[in-house]
C-alpha cells in the first residue's frame, strides 16, 4: 500500500495479490492518498440461520460523533503537543474497523493496526462488548469449554459475499488489507 511507511521488519508494503489469496480480495488500490482512514464493517452476529439478514447491505457508517457536545478547548492538551500530533497523525496509518454486535444498532470502532494479532483483537472485543467471543474452530472451543454459555462468534464477509470465520488468514495480511467486512454468529448448540 502506497502510504505504508517504515517498512523494516513489517509485512511488505506492496499491495495484496488477490490471486494468492482468493478468499480475501482487495479493491484495486493503486496509489492511495496519504491520509486515508480505512473503514471496515465488522458485525457480531447472533444466529446461524439468519445469516443473510445479518448482512448490512448499506455500509452506511454511523458517524463518529461525541456523545455529549464537547467544547473545542477539550481535552486539556497543550497546543504545542496538539499541533505536533495533528501534523503527525495525518501520516500515521490507521485501519479502523466498525464492530457491531447483533441486535445492537450502535457499534464500536477500533484500529486494527494498534493490535498485534487475533488474540489481541479477541481480547479487545471481549472487553468492549463484555461477552465471550470466539473465532476459528467453534466446535473445538466448545469441546474445550463444554459448560461455557454460548459465545458470540466473529466472522466476516469478504468481497465475494462469502461469510468466513475470522482467524484463518495470517494477521499480517489482515492488517494490510483495505476492504473486508466482518460479522459474527452465535453458536447456540455448540
Amino acid at each position, binding site marked *: 500500500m502506497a502510504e505504508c511507511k*517504515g517498512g523494516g521488519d513489517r509485512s511488505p508494503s506492496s499491495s495484496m495479490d488477490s490471486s494468492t489469496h482468493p478468499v480475501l480480495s482487495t479493491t484495486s488500490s493503486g496509489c492511495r492518498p496519504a491520509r486515508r482512514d480505512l473503514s471496515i464493517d465488522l458485525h457480531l452476529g447472533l444466529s446461524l440461520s439468519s445469516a443473510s439478514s445479518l448482512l448490512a447491505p448499506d455500509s452506511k457508517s454511523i458517524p463518529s460523533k*461525541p*456523545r455529549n457536545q464537547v467544547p473545542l478547548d*477539550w481535552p*486539556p492538551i497543550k497546543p*504545542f503537543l496538539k499541533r*505536533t500530533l495533528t501534523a503527525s497523525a495525518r501520516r500515521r496509518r490507521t485501519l479502523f474497523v466498525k464492530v457491531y454486535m447483533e441486535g445492537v444498532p450502535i457499534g464500536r470502532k477500533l484500529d486494527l493496526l494498534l493490535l498485534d494479532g487475533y488474540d489481541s483483537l479477541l481480547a479487545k472485543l471481549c472487553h468492549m462488548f463484555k461477552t465471550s467471543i470466539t473465532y476459528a474452530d467453534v466446535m473445538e472451543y466448545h469441546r474445550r469449554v463444554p459448560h461455557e454459555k454460548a459465545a458470540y462468534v466473529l466472522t466476516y464477509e469478504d468481497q465475494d459475499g462469502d461469510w468466513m470465520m475470522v482467524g484463518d488468514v495470517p494477521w499480517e495480511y489482515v492488517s494490510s488489507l483495505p476492504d473486508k467486512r466482518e460479522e459474527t454468529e452465535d453458536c447456540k448448540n455448540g
Partner: protein
Amino acid sequence: MIYFPEEVVEHIFSFLPSHSDRNTVSLVCKVWYEIERLSRRAVFVGNCYAVRPERVVRRFPKLCVLTVKGKPHFADFNLVPPDWGGYAAPWIEAAARGCVGLEELRMKRMVVSDESLELLARSFPRFKALVLISCEGFSTEGLADIASHCKLLRELDLQENDVEDRGPRWLSCFPDSCTSLVSLNFACIKGEVDSASLERLVAKSPNLRSLRLNRAVTVDTLSKILMRTPNLEDLGTGNFTNEFQTESYLRLTNALEKCKMLKSLSGFWDASPVCVPFIYPLCHQLTGLNLSYTPTLDYSDLTRMISRCVKLQRLWVLDCISDKGLQVVASSCKDLQELRVFPSDFYVAGYSAVTEEGLVAISSGCPKLSSLLYFCHQMTNDALITIAKNCPNFIRFRLCILEPRKPDAMTNQPLDEGFGAIVRECKGLRRLSISGLLTDKVFMYIGKYAKHLEMLSIAFAGDSDDGMMHVLNGCKNLRKLEIRDSPFGDGALLGNVAKYETMRSLWMSSCNVTLKGCEILASKMPMLNVEIMNELDGSSEMEENPGDFSKVEKLYVYRTTAGTRGDAPNFVKIL
C-alpha cells in the same frame, strides 16, 4: 534576648532552602525583615499581577534569580482569550532599573516582546540563564539579541513557546568568546536551523550538558554534534524520519555510544520504527524518556525500547503504547516515578489503546510512582482503589477521562469512591485533577482527606454548591483552584470569601456564577482582583445593566497588593 550580629543572622538565613521559609522569617521583626531582604538572591512571583514589579525590585536590591508566572493555568488549553495580559515588559524594565545584578530570569505563560528581550540582553552584564515556558510574543530576532549580548550565557531554555520564526540567524549570533553554554533548548523553534552554526556553537561549548534540538535538525547534523559532546546528559533529538541513509544512522549509533553520561532523551520527531534499534545501546542508562511527539511508533516498537530502560524514572509516552505496553513498562521500569500518557487521538469518541488496566498494571509494578498524568477513555472505581493502595506516594495525580461525565465503565456509577480512595491513601497529595462522572461526594472526600492539596482542577463535575464548599472549607493548603463547566454558583463563590486571601487564585469558567455574585465578592474583599471575561457580549452590556443576574462566562479571582491592573483589555472587567 541575645542579639546576633547581622552577618550571623544573614548567614543563618542562607541555609533556608525555600522561598516560604525566607518569607516567614522576614515577618518576625523589622530587623530580620531588613536582613532578609538585603540578602535575598531568589524571588518567586507566582502571579505577576499579585505585586508591582517596582516593589519587588525595591525590596530585594540584590536580586539575582527572578521567576514570574503570568496567565492562569487554563490558558494552556485556550480558555483564556488572547491579549488577556501577563506582559513581561514591566518586570524586565523594573529589573533593568533596580537590579542590574540579575543573573537568571524564568518566566511562564507570559507575553514577552522582542524589545523586552533586547532590553534584557543589554541591561544585565552578569546575565546567565533565560528560561521561557509557554510564553509568546517574541521572535527569533529577540533570541538573536540574547545570543549576541549575553556574554556569560549558560542556559537558554525555551519550552513550548510560540515563537515567530524570522530566520535562523539567531544561532550564529553567539560570539566566539561565548564558551559558557551548559544548556540549550530550542525544540519549540519552528523554522530551519543553520547546521554549520549549530555545529560551531557546540564545538566551542565544552560545558554543554543539555541540548534539545528542533524538528529541522537532521540525523546527519545530530551525529556530527554528538561526536563533540561526550559529556551530554540530556538530549532532545531532531527529526528521525525514515528518509535516511543507513550510514547516517550508523554514525549516530557510534556517536551515541560515546555519550556515557546521557540519561535523558526526548524529541524523536516523526520517528520511524526502523530507527528505534539505533537507540538501544543507550537504553540501559536512561532515567528520562519523552516519546510523546511520536505517534508513528506503535506498541511493539515502544515496548522493545522501553523494556531495555531498566533505570527509567520518568516516562512520557502516547497511548499507542496500549495496556499491554504499560504492563511491559511495569515489569521493566521498577524505578519509575513519573508517568505521562497522552492521547494520540483526541476526539471524544475516538479510540485509545489504554484503559484502567494499564494504569493498574503500572501501579502494581512501580510502587515509587509519585507523579501521574493519564489520558484514557474509561476508568473504574475498583481500578482507582487498587491504584491508591499500590501507590500511596502520589504527589501529583492527574487523570483525564476524555469523555466528560463518563461513569465507571463496569458499574456505571460515579467515580467518587475511586478518587476518594486516592485522596485517602495518598496523604502527601499536592496536585489533583479529576474527571469522569462525579457528584458532590467526591468533593466531600477531597475536603476531608486532601490536607496537603495545593492545586485542584475540576471539569464537568459536581451537583451543587456544596461540592465547591467542601473544597474551600476542607483543603487547608489549597493555593490554586480551577473549575470549568461545573454547577457551582454564587452560593459557593461567596460561601468562604476569606479563603481566597489564603490562595493564589481561583478560576471558574462556564459555571453558574453571576455578575451580581462577583460584584458582592469584589465589594467584600478589597484585597482581591475579581476579573470577569464575557467575550461574546463585550463589556458595554455589563456596564449598562449593573447587578444583572446574567451568568459570568469566565471568572478569575486572585489576591493582590497591586490593586487593579492597568493593562487589562476591553473584554476583561475588574470589579
